[in-house]
């Protein structure tokens, strides 16, 4: 009984997917000159990801590219199934944001055999680079470097030591490792800039606050806080306020991401600098798809167009911020 129910549900959802796919194709002319892009998204686990999805959908519409969109709900098997169905439907380009790093060889080979180019977005895989055309996404090391460089420039004339505490992301995650590496590389050029404590805040506000509260008691002379994302910075900002200090003045705060709440803090003068980690890679993805379809060549690694914000830039950008 239960098994039959599952089969039924699966059947219905398949039919629904087919229906939505049909709905999507109405917008295209159906002739050979429209490019069809099959895109498999990781899921919808955060505001960042939702903005990422919206950017891809909007850019496809704007560029006149027919988009077949599929949400993998954080499961690799869903993603592999989606890519296989794209191959069957003979789309022109396949794009996907891999859930995990490993286990893509088989399905990527199938795409290659069917002569369909594959573009990775936002996250990398460990497969042979010849199996995909390009990887489009942020460069986390560069993000860390930009954050460090801002500090180096800001304190280049000072002779006093600058004590920095660092809130790292989840231990072992790529953004945490790379941002730390880039940051420490950049500040290494100035011996006055010193990281006096570095702890993991798991990318969350609650942990960021808890860790900062403890660090404020262990170290009396913190000048700068560098957090690997806005959320930890926001939690730490509350801890700094509760310790009777002024975030942005007594302790400078530098973070990465530029989500709305972080930008608000920056505009309010409580943050000092944010390096953007942008989910809005839709336009770049469509450009790449067009180029590949026209037979042109693209770079193996394309870095998302990202900017940095200081307090004035944040005030300007805030009203039109999408995520």
């Amino acid at each position: 009984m239960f098994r039959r129910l599952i089969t039924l549900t699966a059947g219905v959802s398949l039919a629904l997917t087919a229906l939505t796919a049909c709905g999507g194709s109405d917008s295209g002319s159906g002739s050979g000159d429209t490019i069809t892009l099959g895109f498999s998204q990781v899921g919808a686990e955060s505001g960042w990801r939702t903005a990422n999805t919206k950017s891809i959908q909007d850019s496809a519409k704007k560029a006149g590219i027919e988009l077949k969109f599929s949400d993998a709900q954080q499961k690799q098997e869903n993603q592999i199934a989606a890519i296989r169905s794209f191959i069957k439907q003979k789309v022109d380009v396949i794009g996907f944001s891999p859930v995990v790093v490993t286990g893509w060889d088989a399905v990527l080979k199938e795409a290659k055999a069917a002569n369909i180019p594959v573009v990775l977005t936002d996250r990398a895989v460990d497969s042979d680079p010849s199996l995909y055309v390009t990887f489009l996404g942020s460069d986390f090391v560069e993000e860390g470097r930009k954050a460090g460089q801002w500090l180096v420039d800001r304190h280049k004339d000072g002779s006093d030591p600058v004590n920095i505490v660092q809130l790292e992301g989840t231990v072992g995650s790529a953004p945490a490792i790379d941002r730390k590496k880039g940051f420490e590389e950049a500040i290494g050029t100035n011996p006055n800039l010193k990281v006096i404590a570095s702890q993991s805040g798991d990318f969350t506000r609650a942990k960021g606050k808890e860790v900062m509260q403890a660090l404020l008691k262990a170290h009396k002379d913190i000048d700068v806080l560098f957090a690997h994302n806005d959320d930890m910075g926001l939690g730490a900002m509350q801890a700094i306020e509760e310790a009777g200090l002024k975030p942005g003045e007594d302790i400078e705060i530098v973070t990465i991401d530029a989500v709305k709440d972080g930008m608000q803090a920056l505009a309010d003068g409580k943050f000092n600098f944010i390096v953007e980690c942008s989910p809005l890679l839709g336009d770049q993805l469509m450009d790449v798809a067009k180029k590949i379809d026209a037979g042109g060549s693209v770079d193996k690694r394309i870095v998302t167009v990202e900017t940095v914000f200081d307090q004035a830039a944040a005030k300007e950008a805030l009203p039109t911020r999408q995520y």
Partner: protein
Amino acid sequence: MNRAAALTRHTLFWPVTVWVVLLLANVAFTPGFLSLRIREGHLYGSLIDILLFGAPLILVALGMTVVIATGGIDLSVGATVAISGALACHLIAGGHGLIVALPVAIGASLLLGLWNGLLVTRLGIQPIIATLILMVAGRGIAQLITGGQIITVDSDAYKMIGGGYWLGLPFSILLVAAALAVTLLLTRRTALGLLLEAVGGNAEASRLVGIRSSGLIVLAYMFCGLCAGIAGLMISSNTLSADGNQAGLWIELDAILAVVLGGTALTGGRFALSGTVVGALIIQTLDTTIYTAGIPPRMTLVFSAAVVTVVCLLQSPAFRAKVRRRPPAAPVPSAAEQEATA
């Protein structure tokens, strides 16, 4: 000598000793660790931080102790934490007052507890599986409420629950003290504690002597849900935001650990509420120690595991007996042998 031996046999002796040693170790690293001062009308210092950030864990662990006493376990407390915080923040952000938000969040937590209790008693599903369902599904529900985003609210009254101060102390720890007092009163001054232990010792036998064991078990899960719900309010109120994805993540494991460190066996039956409180304090102090002593993030898990192992070994009567027998046995092996043969 005898009195000292009796002291070391007390259930609270080893957990408290470890906690005190941890605190003293912190003083060695950070000289001002134990110092307290008054700042902006309330006490300020690392000890207060431990209480403030430990409060939700203590509360969840209290509920967990009662469930474990009945021979069960509740893996869904982390999900309940997320749901309750998400509901409260969603309602507050939607313009409702605390009058609406708090009862709805707490009511929902009680319902989730009721659901667990009914799965365990009416359908006879093993507690670890029954609560696993909600552990997985609950986070999805929380995500649904928050729409996958972090909800930020701005309410000074809401901030009071998990981040405010009253009479110079964190309001959350006063809430926890009240919850502990009520629970102690109900389980130690009435027959309720005895009945719970009876159900945990042998549910079938206690049913046969006339205890309504299934009713008691449902009650225990509802109490656990309530504790987790209030803890969820504290966690989300402390940062004035609800994070459906991360709030209370893995708190069920910390809570179970706190219960075990406090000297309650997972097999059910006898339970130690004050032991659980000390267990939770050990875990929170350990976290604070890691931050203040500057232990590298990649080593924190190993460090925690080492301390926890030591506490568990100290708690184990078999291990203590082995250690105690060895020193006197070494100089005079013959005496021990004689004793053994006699």
